[in-house]
């Protein structure tokens, strides 16, 4: 079957040469979409639980409800500040990490269906939302994972990645492109998550 991917997408990204404009754009879109999805999941989950409405969130961050409705549809003209405001309005803040693309890590987790997505209502670390944009040997993949115990998930994920990773030394020497780990969790949980991650 003919597919659209004839040449490894990241071959020129990992070559250390100038990155083509289209690939820069691809990753910008990818990251923006990840931010948007994170917000969307969080907001929908809280809405289902009756914890927040569009009007309430809009009011909290000093925006009109119709603006919030537009942001639910797509990120549009979002900025990092917008993302921060939206998460903060729901009582969350993002946590970011970077690592190298060249570590040869592939994360191939299928995102959970939203209908099955259960967000925690208690005050433990259970079920925090995680977006991991991780590296592949020749690529970056992304996932959203929910877990009954994120710390266990992170450890398992790391062990699995270490077991399967085949770091390529030449890539490591030539490139050190960033990799983003994005979390959103209740503010009181972030410290624990960070400790687990470290």
């Amino acid at each position, binding site marked *: 079957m003919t597919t659209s991917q004839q040449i490894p997408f990241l071959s020129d990204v990992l070559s250390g040469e100038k990155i083509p404009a289209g690939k820069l754009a*691809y990753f910008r*879109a990818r990251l923006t979409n990840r931010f948007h999805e994170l917000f969307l999941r969080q907001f929908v989950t809280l809405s289902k639980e009756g914890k927040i409405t569009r009007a309430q969130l809009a009011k909290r961050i000093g925006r009109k409800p119709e603006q919030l409705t537009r942001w639910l549809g797509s990120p549009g003209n979002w900025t990092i500040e917008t993302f921060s405001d939206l998460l903060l309005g729901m009582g969350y803040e993002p946590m970011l990490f970077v690592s190298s693309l060249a570590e040869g890590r592939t994360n191939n987790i299928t995102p959970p269906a939203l209908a099955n997505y259960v967000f925690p209502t208690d005050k433990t670390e259970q079920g925090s939302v995680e977006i991991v944009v991780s590296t592949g040997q020749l*690529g970056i*993949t992304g996932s959203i994972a929910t877990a009954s115990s994120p710390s266990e998930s992170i450890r398992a994920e790391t062990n699995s990645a270490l077991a399967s990773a085949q770091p390529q030394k030449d890539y490591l020497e030539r490139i050190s492109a960033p990799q983003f780990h994005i979390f959103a969790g209740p503010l009181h949980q972030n410290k624990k998550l960070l400790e687990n991650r470290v």
Partner: protein
Amino acid sequence: MNWLLTYMSIYYEIANRVNEKRLFSLTPALPGAPMVRHIYASSEIHRLITGPWVNTTWEERCGYLRGDLDRFIEGRVIAIATRPYKGKTAYMLRLHPPREQVWEIRSRDPYPGIRVFGRFADIDIFIALTWAKRADLAGPHSREWRDAREACKTEWRNLFPAYEPITGNGGDFRDYISANTVLI
């Protein structure tokens, strides 16, 4: 008389069109990324994704488009407008009139916005057939929009003369996309 009943599904036809290089299976750009939904693209849309492009600006714009299409393919959460002319920022929309079953995927940013038109062959299987720059489509009831819908339908008939796109049962959007949608 012995009757030989040969059942040919639209899947068989899709596979034929792919073998003929009239359709292309879009896979996530990044190796290992999940492939939860499927897009089969016409050659003109495939060219947007793979190039060559007329200039760097267009290459960049098409890079954004590919990121947006991967959002669908990877099964990420997407917003769907429930009614035509509403939810203008939604990722996806079924155009008016609904009976024509013409959908658009909106790659809104950056300018110029791009609209990818297509129809669903089955649940989670989108056949992306034509595209247009949003700025070239004028107002919502314009001749350009009608022409865009007609071009999409014509392309479908050329590819699948014996098959119709799926029709949602009573307008239930889960008949088109199984999960991870937010209706706005």
